[in-house]
């Protein structure tokens, strides 16, 4: 199957390891994802608050490219890109006037029928069986808290994916690869999002609460499906350590990194060594268990 791959800006920057682990796992599963040729910004960050029309045009261009290049489905691994592309597609499909305007700007007809999917939906399409066949390592020592963040499941009327208040799709995948999941309260709680840049202390405060709730419920690792979530929960632990002297580290993994570990790849191959909080399977896991106890 040829699924279009829309990396988004962070896949070559702050989320390099997300891209790396994703491609590695896809290769192993012989699942074809093909990068969208000449893709450009989706408008998820400043565009949509600066100029609505600009954000529609930016997304519209990528939707048009996807159609031209023949992709029926397109993966956007970053939840913000996923959300922005879906919202734009929805708006274009619901207003012929707006669609006509954007088609003129991007100089291309847009049908608006490409299925935009997120990383969880990608693995759901590949199927539990195929994934299970490729598992080599026993991950049962991992107690994962699945963190969905804000954009994967909201607004439900547009994503039509899982449940906006109590999602369970990531847990199912994590269980498939052999890790255990915990039932916790902050699956969709705000991490501080883009305040990470200008108001870091907000992120430190909110993300710390998320990590502690995961820990209280027995987690020794947090799984994410979005570069923003990862940055705030992983990278900002450095600032958390400065703010909270007794902060004990909690490793944060991207979903494909977890699946890659199950398949037998190591930290370096998957890019996990690029994380702020070091994760060494299984030694580090044992170590953090000691700390929690």
């Amino acid at each position, binding site marked *: 199957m040829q699924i279009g791959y829309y990396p988004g800006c962070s896949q070559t920057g702050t989320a390099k390891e997300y891209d790396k682990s994703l491609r590695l796992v896809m290769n192993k599963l012989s699942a074809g994802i093909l990068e969208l040729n000449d893709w450009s910004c989706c408008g998820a960050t400043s565009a949509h608050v600066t100029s609505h029309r600009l954000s529609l045009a930016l997304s519209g261009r990528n939707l048009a490219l996807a159609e031209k290049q023949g992709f029926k489905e397109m993966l956007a691994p970053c939840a913000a890109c996923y959300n922005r592309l879906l919202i734009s597609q929805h708006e274009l499909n619901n207003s012929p006037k707006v669609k006509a305007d954007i088609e003129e700007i991007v100089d291309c007809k847009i049908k608006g029928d490409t299925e935009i999917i997120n990383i969880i939906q990608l693995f759901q399409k590949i199927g539990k069986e195929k994934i299970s066949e490729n598992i080599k390592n026993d991950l049962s020592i991992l107690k994962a808290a699945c963190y969905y963040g804000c954009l994967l499941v909201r607004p439900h009327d547009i994503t039509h994916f899982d*449940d*906006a*208040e*109590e999602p369970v799709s990531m847990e199912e995948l994590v269980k498939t690869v052999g890790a255990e999941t915990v039932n916790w*309260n*902050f699956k969709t709680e705000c991490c501080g999002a883009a305040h990470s840049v200008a108001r870091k202390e907000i992120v430190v405060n909110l993300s710390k609460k998320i990590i502690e*709730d995961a820990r*209280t419920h027995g987690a020794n690792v947090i799984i994410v499906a979005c570069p923003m979530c990862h940055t705030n929960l992983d990278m900002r632990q450095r600032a958390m350590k400065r703010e909270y002297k007794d902060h004990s580290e909690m490793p944060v993994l991207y979903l494909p990194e977890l699946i890659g570990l199950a398949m037998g790849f190591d930290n370096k191959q998957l890019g996990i060594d690029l994380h702020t909080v070091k994760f060494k399977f299984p030694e580090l896991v044992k170590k953090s268990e000691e700390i929690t106890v």
Partner: protein
Amino acid sequence: MKIGVFICHCGENIGRTVDCARVAKAAAFFTNVVYSVDNKYMCSDPGQNIIKQAVKDYKLDGVVVGSCSPHMHEKTFRKAVSDAGVNPFLCEIANLREHVSWVHEDKEVATGKAIDLVRFAVEKVKRNSPLTTIKVPVTKRTLVIGGGISGIQAALDVANAGYEVVLVEKEPSIGGHMSQLSETFPTLDCSQCILTPRMVEVYQHPKIKLMTYAEVESVEGFIGNFKVTIKQKARYVDADKCSGCGTCMQKCPIKKKAFSEFDEKLAFRSAIYVPFPQAVPNIPVIDTSVCTYFKNGKCSMCQKVCDREAIFFDQKDELITEDVGAIIVATGYKLYTIDKKPEESEIKGYGEYGYGKYKDVIDGLQFERIASASGPTSGEFKRPSDGKEPKKIVFIQCVGSRDESKGFSYCSKICCMYTAKHAMLYKHKVHDGEAYVFYMDIRAGGKMYEEFVRRAIEEDGVKYIRGRVSRIYEQNGKYIVKGEDTLAGVPVEIDADMVVLATAMVAQPEASKLAQTIGIPYDKYGYFVEVHPKLRPVESSSGGIFLAGACHSPRDIPECVSMASAAAAKAMVLFGSDMLEREPTVAKVNELLCAGCFYCRKVCAYNAIEIKDIRDRSGNLIKQVAYVNDGLCQGCGTCNATCPSKSVELIGYTDEQIFAEISALY
């Protein structure tokens, strides 16, 4: 035919936009019009006298009035015409107000349209025939559907006036939700204490036939003459033999399988049970879904211990028909639930409050059961999860109501009051407890209602926070309630021991099905619809069927009782005479033309068309024709439009009349 035309100015309402004098002048030139005049207030006494005088002076035998909508004054003018000695059905109304002067601005255009409308009323009335109202007999019995406080009140009112009542209730006992309440606002009366005497009165009343554990299967007929089929569900207990001793319930081995509906699932009941000790009638039923005998043929403990031999496992459901003249619908309400709803449902649940998985996040009726002295905790405040006494309770108003995204947009009316009541009841028993109420607005518009809420705040120290709650989650045995205090402009977080949600009153889930069975309209929420929200709030548009209580819209007990009495009064209006008068605009068959194809019979919604044999003098059958029972015919005209030979005609709306109207317009 000599027709008189009377154009009303309706003060300024018509006169300001329509040149009434000109309309009257133009009408004078229509064929058959011998008198035409305009007047400021045609419906007034002097106005009506003009009509009556003109009828006499000009020997009129047809009248056209250009005025407000026929829905307003057709009856008025028809009566005036009748008083003057002309058949009231030879009077037609041209709607010059709602359909002309109030909706158009250009005087020239409006006047032209008014002249057109008057002309076609003249053409119609030329072809009208004098009709007499049809008289049908009335069955002076009433069916009351629903045995809550509304149904009980209505039944008692009608029965005390001397008319028979059949009261049908689907649960094993009457009493409804009011019997579940602990105390009622604003007096804090014990709910059951004021209700049970009424329940007993109903049970003992010689004029009331009480059918509990029964449901209405079908309703046929029409006002004054309904035939209702009721399914009496099998109790598996002989009501005549049972003494209500309760031994069967005590000895029933099923103790923990069935949740008590009466106690809102906070307690268990046995397989053979009465819903609550004060049930009326105090006769148990067997829940066959959990009873061991019905599931695998073993166990007949109840039968063994019953010393009256009242238990019969082979009892069957029974269908019973009742003839009644009026029906009062009092089927009540349910509460909105926050559990997850199916994907396609327009109503969602509240995932942010836990989708119902937290045992100590409860709704109003559950709180009532906890607070009730006869409830599962004997009136002591104990958490459902661990039985500990909650020291901090958070009450949240407007759950599912005033919420277009997850629930209903309407206001559930009673929640502000019962939340204040709940907080007060809690504080009265747990003096060191803290009660918080998250509200959007306080609606306390009844007698002594505002004072009641102030009492909760000022005397009982209930803390009111204006804002909504965004999230409830469990942490270390407590419930973290995250909300907002909009007046102070700060977020609020409370670690509560228990949370009580004031969930919206909603229509019963089977309401729409019941409405279609009975034949009454219902709205998008499932509430039954009245004829006119201001002036006719207890009548449905189906003649003879009245509405009472929360099945119409959210309301509190005094409003339910008032509405029930009003519905009872309306029903009794029907019984005031032995014969009911019905509009004579019914269908009639021309037996010479009818070929007996009976297509009309197929389309008649009231089964009003019968087959009639036409025989010669020796009794030999010549042909069969259709025959309209004018007692049953409601006058819709579907048969007329269906008939291939037009041998059945709707009097008052014949093809000839309608063609004449069409031709007259231009």
